């Protein structure tokens, strides 16, 4: 007894489930005798006729307000021809599906009962849309992901390019005119004057001697190597004689300062002002 009731409950459940599935698979509702379907969504309708199977009109195209295709066919034992049709509404409105059908034998579809279907649209009436050829929405920051990506990439590339180009085009600021480099003689002059007055400090005496080296190096056009240059200067008849006397004055153990006359003679060659620039 219990087993029978259990079987009955299972059958009931199965029927209800099948009913739900069928109901959900048909996106069509029957209100006021009209089949209703959402625009662009496939709807189904079953057409029974005693004159034969029907099918969609062969001249239907994407511009037609409604498109029809055959989903299944059956010929019942009672002689009725059953055709299950799928249709897609392109435009919103109420249509008689018979206008989109033909009989296999080519007979008039007026032999069928009217087949009104209503195509409803969930979009606003003025929303531009096309069921089959969706127009790309205009690129905006909020939408058009690919476009936005392209724009960002271009900007990403352009920024350094712009920076580099601007830097290249930027005019360098006019460098401040450097003060003329003091010539060796400019630097020698005060030291020579102080030497004549015997007021040179140790540091000044050191600088005086090294400036004399630099003076002769430039005057004789000697190489950059200071050691080699000094060797050559010492071998020069004029420069060597003067330099050795300066060395004896500044470095010799007796340390005798030259007399005013000697000093004048010693420093005389450095009195001529020539345009030399300290290297």
């Amino acid at each position: 007894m219990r087993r029978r009731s259990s079987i009955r409950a299972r059958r009931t459940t199965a029927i209800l489930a099948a009913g739900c599935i069928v109901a959900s698979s048909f996106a069509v509702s029957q209100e006021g005798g009209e089949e209703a379907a959402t625009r662009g969504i496939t709807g189904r309708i079953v057409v029974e006729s005693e004159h034969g199977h029907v099918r969609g009109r062969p001249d239907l195209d994407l511009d037609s307000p409604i498109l029809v295709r055959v989903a299944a066919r059956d010929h019942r034992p009672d002689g009725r021809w059953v055709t299950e049709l799928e249709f897609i509404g392109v435009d919103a409105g109420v249509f008689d599906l018979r206008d989109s059908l033909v009989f296999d034998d080519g007979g008039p579809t007026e032999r069928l009962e009217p087949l009104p279907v209503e195509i409803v649209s969930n979009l606003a009436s003025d929303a531009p849309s096309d069921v089959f050829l969706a127009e790309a929405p205009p690129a905006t920051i909020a939408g058009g992901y690919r476009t936005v990506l392209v724009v960002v990439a271009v900007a990403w590339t352009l920024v350094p390019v712009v920076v580099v180009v601007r830097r290249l085009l930027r005019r360098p600021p006019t460098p401040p005119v450097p003060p003329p480099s003091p010539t060796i003689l400019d630097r020698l002059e005060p030291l020579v004057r102080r030497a004549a007055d015997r007021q040179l400090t140790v540091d000044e005496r050191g600088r005086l001697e090294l400036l004399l080296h630099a003076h002769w190096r430039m005057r004789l056009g000697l190489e950059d190597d200071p050691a080699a240059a000094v060797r050559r200067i010492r071998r020069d008849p004029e420069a060597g004689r003067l330099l050795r006397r300066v060395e004896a004055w500044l470095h010799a153990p007796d340390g005798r300062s030259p007399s005013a006359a000697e000093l004048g003679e010693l420093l005389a060659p450095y009195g001529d002002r020539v345009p030399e620039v300290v290297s």
Partner: protein
Amino acid sequence: MNDSNATTDAGPAAGEAFARTVSTSVARTVVGQEVVVERILIALLTGGHLLLEGVPGIAKTLLVQAVGRAIDLEFKRIQFTIDLLPSDIVGSEILDPESGSFRIHKGPAFTNLLLADEINRASPKVQSALLEAMQERRVSIGDTTHDLPAPFLVIATQNPVEQAGTFELPEAQLDRFMLRHRLDYPTFDEEAEVVRRGLQLKLKRQGDGAVPMSAFDAIEEASPFHVRDLTKAMERVLEVHVSDVFVRDCVELVTMTRDHPDLELGCSPRAAIALVNASRARAFIHGRDYAVPEDFLALAEDVVLHRIRLNYEALAEGRRGEDVLREILANLA
């Protein structure tokens, strides 16, 4: 010994004669390299140590041995290798099987002139042992400390090309060398003369056999000088006058290396001391009793270059220590 009066003569000419005699004696064996002979003499006269850098085969060992022979100095040579131990240099205690006690075996460091060939091939531990001996002029073997002979001069060599498997001397160790001199290849004429001299070498007979003589066999046995002549010369060097102006120049040069924008490491005060001392010796060699700027200008490269280190930016720009030093010398005034 007939020229030994050179150092006993008073006056500035004594040093010049001493140097000329040594150079002449060395020149009978070694062709050219007068500057290196001068540097070795400077090191000998001032008690500094010398690092010679040069590719193999330019007579570094022969030169040092010839100078040692010219002044009658005891000469020893150590070839530095990776497996050398400190005891191989300074010596060790050895168990005498007959007496059953330990006896001291003195290493090759106990000599006047020690040639440390390819010093950068030994491990830092060995380098350190030698450099300590150089600094302190004494070594410890077991529990006892031994003074090294006087004079004691280390002349180390480095091959600047082959650096694989070597231990570069750190700056602190390099600083202990008074001078680092780079040897160049001989000139064309000098090299031709080297070859000609090689052609004149004969066979050295040993019993019934013989081996070809080498340049080492051609070093004169007779020494024109004795160690005491060197000592006198060293005394004379100490009498060479160094003016305040000269000291100012040397210190200025050294301090400028510390402020130069291309240098990461400048010279230590030891460099200034070395520059003044070496200049004194050079003045003596050139027959002057006072040092002049030419002396420190000539020695600046050998005193300064191994004590400075270029910074990354300067290295990236391809600058060399020589360039920086030349710039400093040019701006010294």
